[in-house]
């Protein structure tokens, strides 16, 4: 009978005991691997968050808050200076104002309390239910015509439903694209002309942003907006740094161009920290959990082996009496431990596949975030709504089959560590002491 077969038979000789060891070890290993996977996912998630929001710096006229404008603008000559700063890879300017005409009707329903960029109800009208009920205004955004695919809502884009988006050739033309719901509310289509501040502006395209507020806008070339509304400068400049680590340095440079009385310079650092905190907590917790679980797994194996060896001390004595070396007996116990560890590793892998995402969700369930790039930031609707509904702080764990290899490696490692126990114990057993007559 070979050593392997004998080891296997020894394990099934006490199926209850072996099963208990496998179960406890599998749970410990599964938990450790789950924590390992969650930890890996959190690290990746932190990187993603940093990549999404980490390098943008928003410059707005001092006093701007959220989507509300302070009424002033940043001078174009100063904004142009931003492009020359070190570590700046792009500057996206936009000018945003509110439609003040009476021709168009907003697409967003009225009585949306506290709505972003809302306008007070006209003086003299009756507010039926609440003192602070607002009517959503139509937002007019002037964007750089060179950017054919403006970004909306911190990452969203617009898609043209009909007509075309304006081109650099139309940088000062009286043209605009309008949101789909706004067009529908006002029976507008491509070719329609609307009076904007006394100028007939042609609708050359209708877009859909997939968002209620996003579709309640007029988008024109930035120069057109500045001309129609007599605005000198821009209301938002989003500066992108070349790396997260350079954001603070670039922000400092921007503050030399715009002093604190002129503009608010907002970096993503605070937002990043806020969003990342839940993920960071999850990363820290999962790392601690992983270490504790591995220690528990090692302790389980060590105790199991010690228990088995002590229970089978007579068998060790018999083996020694018939001429088996300590090494040979130790090898048999080592193989038995290895078999237990490998089976536990496979079961533990299954546990990881089943529970990794659930554990990750537990870590972040109380930290779901509603976030955006930062108030008034973003490139597309500069100064407009930049709220992203989402759970960027959530962790998506993808358990790869590689985890099985890690589990098997951990199992082998634990078995090797645990083999120290029988080797030590067997060397101390003297047949004369354990084979006394009953």
């Amino acid at each position, binding site marked *: *009978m070979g050593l392997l077969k004998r080891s296997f*038979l020894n394990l099934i000789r006490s199926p209850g005991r072996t099963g208990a060891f496998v179960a406890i070890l599998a749970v410990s290993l599964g938990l450790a691997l789950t924590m390992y996977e969650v930890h890996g996912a959190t690290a990746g998630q932190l990187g993603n968050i940093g990549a999404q929001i980490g390098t943008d710096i928003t410059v707005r006229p001092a006093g701007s808050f959220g989507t509300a404008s302070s009424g002033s603008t940043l001078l174009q000559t100063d904004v142009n200076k931003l492009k020359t700063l070190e570590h700046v890879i792009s500057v996206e300017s936009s000018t945003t104002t509110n439609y003040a005409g009476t021709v168009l009707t907003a697409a967003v329903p009225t009585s949306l309390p506290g709505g972003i960029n809302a306008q007070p109800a006209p003086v003299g009208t009756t507010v039926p239910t609440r003192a602070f009920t607002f009517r959503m205004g139509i937002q007019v955004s002037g964007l750089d015509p060179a950017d054919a695919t403006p970004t909306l809502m911190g990452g969203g884009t617009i898609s043209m439903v009909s007509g075309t988006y304006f081109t650099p050739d139309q940088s000062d033309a009286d043209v605009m694209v309008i949101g789909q719901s706004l067009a529908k509310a006002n029976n507008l289509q491509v070719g329609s002309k609307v009076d904007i501040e006394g100028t007939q502006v042609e609708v050359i395209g209708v877009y859909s942003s997939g968002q209620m507020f996003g579709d309640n806008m007029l988008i024109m070339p930035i120069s057109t907006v500045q001309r129609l509304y007599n605005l000198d400068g821009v209301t938002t400049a989003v500066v992108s740094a070349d790396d997260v680590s350079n954001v603070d340095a670039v922000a400092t440079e921007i503050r030399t161009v715009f002093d604190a009385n002129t503009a608010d310079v907002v970096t993503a650092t605070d937002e990043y920290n806020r969003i990342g905190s839940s993920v960071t907590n999850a990363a820290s917790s999962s790392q601690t959990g992983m270490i504790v679980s591995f220690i528990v797994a090692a302790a389980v194996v060590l105790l199991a082996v010690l228990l088995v060896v002590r229970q089978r001390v007579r068998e060790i004595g018999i083996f020694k009496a018939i001429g088996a070396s300590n090494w040979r007996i130790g090898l048999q116990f080592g193989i038995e431990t290895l078999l237990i560890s490998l089976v536990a590793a496979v079961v533990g892998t299954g546990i990881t596949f089943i529970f990794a995402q659930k554990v990750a969700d537990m870590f972040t369930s109380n930290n779901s975030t509603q976030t955006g790039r930062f108030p008034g930031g973003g490139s597309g609707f500069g100064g407009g709504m930049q709220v992203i509904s989402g759970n960027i702080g959530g962790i998506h764990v993808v358990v790869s089959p590689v985890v099985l290899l890690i589990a098997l490696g951990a199992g082998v490692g634990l078995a090797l560590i645990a083999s120290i126990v029988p080797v030590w114990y067997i060397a101390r057993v003297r047949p*004369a002491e354990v084979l*006394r007559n*009953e």
Partner: protein
Amino acid sequence: MSNSIVQAATDNAPIVTAEKLCRYYQSADTTVKALDGVSLSFPRGRMIAIKGSSGSGKTTLLNLIGAFDKPSSGSITVDGVDVAHMHGGSEVKYRLNKVGFVFQSYYLIPNMTALENVMLPMELSGLGAKKREARARELLEKVGIDKTREARKPAKLSGGEQQRVAIARALANDPPILLADEPTGNLDSKTGRRIVDLLGTLTREGKTVIIATHSTEVAAAADITVDMLDGGIQGQSQNN
């Protein structure tokens, strides 16, 4: 040391000699003298019974001959090997090749069949699978275990059958000395006599059989009886 293990002793030389052999145990504040200054000489190819009551030191003497234990002082030489000063690999080789041990409680490996139990010492000495299986079958047949019982595990064998398997296992590597500690202690008298007869036949093949027993009947079947009391030898007699 390993050279001394394979060193062949002459046929006339005693197979076991001991000089002032002592084995003391420390128990709490008292020293138990399990073996106290024993000197003896056992001839080769005989059945020797070490007779005495419990605590007389007979099992301790057997353990020292089998290198299961170390003497506190004195010397013991078995088949030319200084057993008292063996360590590690020498001890393993000695147990594997020089002595076979038969226990009162048989001590077979429970999850192995009779055949596998007998094959085990040969596996440990590195004999090929086919050779050890053939020899194991031969030994089982010799001790009276028929083929229908070869594949049985110890629990499915009677006490006498288990002891026969244990004797076959002890003979597996063809050792010159067979040590038996109360081999009939767990058997009825009829079965016990058969086991003693079986051990007696081994001396005709040149084996030296040393039996520790408290049974007068077993001692009477031996060629030489050594009487022990309180860790010392009371007398030695030659049986007819």
